[in-house]
């Protein structure tokens, strides 16, 4: 992995078309500004994880495999 240190206001270019600018840093968070062509999807990683999980979840689910887990959930106080 390439590691680059940047300060607020500085940016990084990826290829010809994508620019990532550090807008603000502080309190454990970094605010980024991303300029990219419309065709380049920009997603938070959590959204990608959720998309992948949704695609998997949309597959056929053999309901009998859930019987045990459901019974356990119901039996909890």
């Amino acid at each position, binding site marked *: 992995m390439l590691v680059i240190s940047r300060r607020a206001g500085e940016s990084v270019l990826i290829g010809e078309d994508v620019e990532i600018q550090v807008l603000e840093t502080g309190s454990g968070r970094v605010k980024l500004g991303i300029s990219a062509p419309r065709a380049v999807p920009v997603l*938070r990683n*959590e*959204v*990608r*994880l*959720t*998309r*992948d*999980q*949704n*695609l*998997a*979840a*949309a*597959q056929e*689910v*053999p*309901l009998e*495999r*859930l019987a045990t*887990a*459901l019974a*356990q*959930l*119901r039996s*909890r*106080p």
Partner: protein
Amino acid sequence: MPQCETKYFGTVSYDDSAAVEFPTGLPGFENCRRFLPIEEAARLPLVFMQSLEQPGLCFLTLQVAAIDPGYQLKMSPEDMASVGFDQPLGTAVDMVCLAVLSIAYADAPTVNLLAPIVVNPRTGRAVQSVRDDAVYLCRQPLVRLQAPCS
């Protein structure tokens, strides 16, 4: 009364007011907007989230409170606005909170507590609200959430 084809229950009649709308779809299913939550007494706390546009699409979800009674919901202002919450969470806001269940990744089912589906019953609108913190897992194994046997 309208009818729809479903993935698990054949043809079902439903009340239009029971349908929920995801104004922006769900991640990976951005074009699927209208769903019908179906509950079966024998399978509670499971809620089937059946697409009204694609009969073959039905998410299995669980009521988050049944999985983790201490779950702390956190939503972005954009997600709150999209379902029509005009008061801060934590006040007595009427809502349904569901976690998408998957059994594809492991032998044991997992639930997505990183991105719960939140329904506002007052507006009939819903959103899969993806958190931006690392407090909950996208693939939380369901079995490990059980209280240990005493």
